């Protein structure tokens, strides 16, 4: 009886593997491009427009894996993605320095805004510099809600605190959600706190949220997106042709035009600003 | 009489213990053989070994002379027999579904199986329960179904493992009666393990007394009951008085045995000075009021005092001290008639022919 079950067992195991292989083989590998990007990028909805355009034009099938910024960079560093669309300056520079990427090209930027309750207890409305606003929030002891999830937004926020020279770790007024942008905004709105958000997500949720834009426009609040192809010399299995095709597409006139007008219809103002070909210094970062 | 089943040098060892050790056993076609013995004697194990539900550790089972497992395929052999257990072990379906299951296993089609099964349902008195779910049956109805299921495949040998132990007396009585009729009709060879001596007596052509995995005695009921081969069998079959003594005198037909200072005459053979064991069944002891008027044809008449009187349902057990311990059974009627009370003086007598001698040398 044992022999019977053992052989039957093996048969089903092999059959399952064959079935799995068959279903996967529907997509020939070279046609797949694995794009690692961030949840906030996906949540903006921009990719829902751009990716179909790219797929139709080139015949590639893009697998958009939207994860935290840290995980996206790690995927690229392990050769598990073909191209990255991310927005974490420091991490990107390290990525390139480690030889993981081929080219790092600027695509677009959006900006962060500091939002908070209309009552504005820390009196930061209209402050020109973000660092000053943060200082005021700390001084007043008003609650600041952070994403606390090592995302691009979180990285930017930590950067501002550091530049402002303010201690925030472990402070009573500093709270971390560990959640995505949309959820963090919901929590901040519920508790009537300050938070740092990307304009795109804020605009998408603005109705019914109850938080006002209090500080905007400062150079440090710019969130710049780059597209980076994963280095095939380091990771031969990476689909360099596909990754490059995608990167080329993102900086092409066609895509840039779409980026320029994305969001106007729905929110009245664009969510992103196309920057392909520009020098970073020109943006005042 | 043809031997339908035989066991040779049969050993069953499980968990390091020798559960069954039967050197040579024969079962005759058409007979009903009962296995009796205390718990742990190996009755169930022997049944399972004989039916090849359990593989023997050593030895052979021979079905009509062919060794099962060697020249006789196990599955083929198993399909010639049926077993009914103490629990009905019915399947979760209707009564008729259950009774047909043995046939379905043998590949018999549904309508053909139904046809074959109808008379079985009648025989065991469950025809009116045909479409009932097995889960709704009473204990008696369920066991009848189990029996019908066994007979439906016309087994050459029927094994019964204490099939009526879990039933109340009236139900038991009713089923045993029906089974008796069916067995008389079909003359199916039956091997039955049971605790109930009366059942064994009633249904069996032969009785096998088991102890410690061995068969102590296998013979016709009358022989086993009245001429037990040793003390163990004697006490198990219900001989209440077992006495050790020494042969004092002999003549052609009888022995005089000395037991604790008294002398008892028994029919049998022996040598003077030989140590023997006397077995006296309590039914064979006659009691009378000790006034010398009532005469019996018994040579052995003893006077003593009544010790305990224990009620045992239909009769009473009376323990008497008359130089040795003697046990008698009397009906309630007799008890009242003789005004038997503990402490009373009593005269007891036993026929010399009703006493069984076991010679200590093991003959």
């Amino acid at each position, binding site marked *: 009886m044992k022999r019977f079950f053992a052989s039957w*067992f093996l048969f*089903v195991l092999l059959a399952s593997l064959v079935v799995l292989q068959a279903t*996967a083989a529907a997509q020939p590998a070279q046609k797949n491009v694995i794009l690692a990007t961030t949840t906030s990028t996906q949540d903006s909805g921009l990719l829902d427009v751009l990716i179909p355009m790219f797929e139709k034009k080139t015949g590639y099938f893009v697998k*958009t894996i939207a994860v935290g910024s840290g995980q996206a960079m790690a995927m690229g560093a392990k050769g598990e993605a073909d191209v990255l669309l991310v927005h974490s300056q420091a991490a990107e520079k390290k990525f390139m320095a480690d030889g993981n990427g081929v080219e790092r090209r600027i695509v677009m930027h959006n900006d962060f805004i500091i939002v908070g309750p209309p009552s504005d207890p820390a009196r930061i409305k209209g402050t020109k510099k973000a660092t000053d606003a943060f200082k005021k929030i700390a001084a007043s002891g008003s609650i600041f809600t952070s994403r606390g999830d090592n995302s691009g937004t979180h990285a930017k926020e930590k950067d501002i605190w550091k530049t402002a020279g303010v201690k925030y770790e472990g402070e009573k007024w500093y709270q971390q959600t560990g959640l995505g942008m949309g959820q963090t905004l919901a929590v901040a709105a519920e508790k009537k706190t300050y938070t740092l958000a990307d304009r795109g997500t804020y605009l998408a949720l603005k109705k019914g949220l109850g938080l006002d834009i209090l500080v905007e426009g400062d150079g440090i609040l710019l969130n710049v997106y780059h597209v980076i192809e994963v280095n095939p010399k380091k990771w031969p299995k990476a689909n360099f042709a596909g990754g490059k095709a995608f990167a080329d597409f993102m900086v092409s006139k066609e895509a840039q035009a779409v980026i320029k007008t994305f969001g106007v219809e729905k929110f009245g103002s664009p969510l992103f600003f196309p920057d392909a070909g520009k020098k970073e210094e020109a943006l005042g970062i | 009489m043809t031997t339908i089943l035989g066991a040779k040098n049969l050993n069953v060892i499980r968990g390091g213990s020798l559960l069954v050790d039967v050197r040579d056993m024969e079962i005759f076609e058409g007979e009903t053989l009962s296995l009796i013995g205390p718990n742990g004697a190996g009755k169930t194990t022997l049944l399972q070994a004989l039916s090849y539900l359990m593989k023997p550790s050593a030895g052979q089972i021979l079905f009509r002379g062919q060794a099962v497992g060697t020249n006789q395929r196990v599955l083929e052999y198993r399909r010639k027999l049926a077993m009914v257990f103490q629990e009905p072990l019915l399947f979760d379906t209707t009564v008729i579904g259950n009774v047909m299951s043995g046939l379905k296993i043998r590949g018999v089609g549904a309508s053909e199986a139904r046809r074959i099964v109808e008379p079985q349902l009648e025989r065991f008195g469950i025809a009116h329960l045909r479409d009932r779910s097995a889960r709704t049956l009473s204990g008696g109805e369920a066991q009848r179904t189990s029996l019908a299921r066994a007979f439906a495949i016309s087994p050459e040998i029927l094994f019964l493992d204490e099939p009526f132990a879990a039933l109340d007396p009236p139900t038991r009585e009713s089923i045993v009666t029906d089974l008796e009729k069916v067995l008389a009709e079909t003359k199916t060879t039956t091997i039955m393990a049971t605790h109930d001596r009366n059942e064994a007596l009633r249904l069996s052509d032969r009785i096998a007394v088991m102890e410690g995995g061995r068969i102590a005695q296998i013979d016709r009921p009358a022989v086993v009951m009245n001429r037990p081969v040793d003390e163990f069998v004697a006490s198990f079959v219900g001989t209440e008085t077992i006495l050790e003594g020494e042969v004092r005198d002999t003549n052609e037909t009888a022995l005089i045995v000395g037991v604790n200072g008294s002398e008892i005459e028994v029919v049998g053979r022996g040598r003077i000075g030989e140590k023997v064991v006397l077995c006296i069944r309590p039914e064979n002891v006659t009691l009378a009021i000790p006034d010398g008027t009532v005469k019996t044809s018994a040579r052995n008449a003893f006077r003593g005092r009544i010790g305990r009187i224990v009620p045992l349902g239909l009769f009473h057990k009376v323990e008497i001290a008359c130089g040795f311990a003697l046990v008698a059974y009397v009906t309630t009627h007799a008890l009242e008639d003789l005004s038997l009370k503990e402490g009373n003086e009593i005269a007891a007598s036993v026929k010399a022919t009703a006493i069984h001698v076991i010679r200590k040398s093991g003959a």
Partner: protein
Amino acid sequence: MDIILEGILKAFILLVTFDREVLGITWFSLKVSGTATFISLFFGMSVGTVVALTQFPGRKFVVSLINTGMALPPVVVGLFVTIFLWRNGPLGFLEILYTPAAMILAQAIIATPIVTGISLAAMQQLPRKMRLQILALGATRLQMVRILIREARLPLLAAVMAGFGGVISEVGASIMVGGNIKGYTRVLTTATVMETSRGNFDIAIALGIILLLFAYAINLVLTYVQQRERPR
């Protein structure tokens, strides 16, 4: 509270208007979890039956492993499957990461211990002598197993429902090995997480309600089949 009502309304609208994307995601979820449950039935019922009916050294250890497997965190399964299926991982050559196949694989791994554990319990609660009785009726080993499975069909159906329930509701592994790719590997649970992350709570609630509705419908059918056999 309003947000929940908004969600219910949204769910209703999405269903009644046969919203293509939602229906597509729903159908895909059922296909993936259904296939995974089916695979887990093969492995689970056979292993559960064998372990229940045979004695072998180390049996108690195996049983405890199976029972522990029922508490296996799906997200941990997802992590391990992802690592194995990475391009540079041991099974990378299969190239099934971020495909429905990977999701079916991960879900099958999650469901199998559940189905095994309950099947094991189902077969063990049959009377010990039942096996002997079936053999005494002249059954072959194969016939005996078939009859035992039929006898235990009620709890075995529960195993199916438990396996299915475990995977239709899971999200951690599905996101990791599937990637939540629109129109390709997006299921109701992963879509719910995404919509919540975007702050679209009404859609998230709607998807959750739709998931519950379909899971309920399926279990209703299975329960009906199971309970139909109850004693009269």
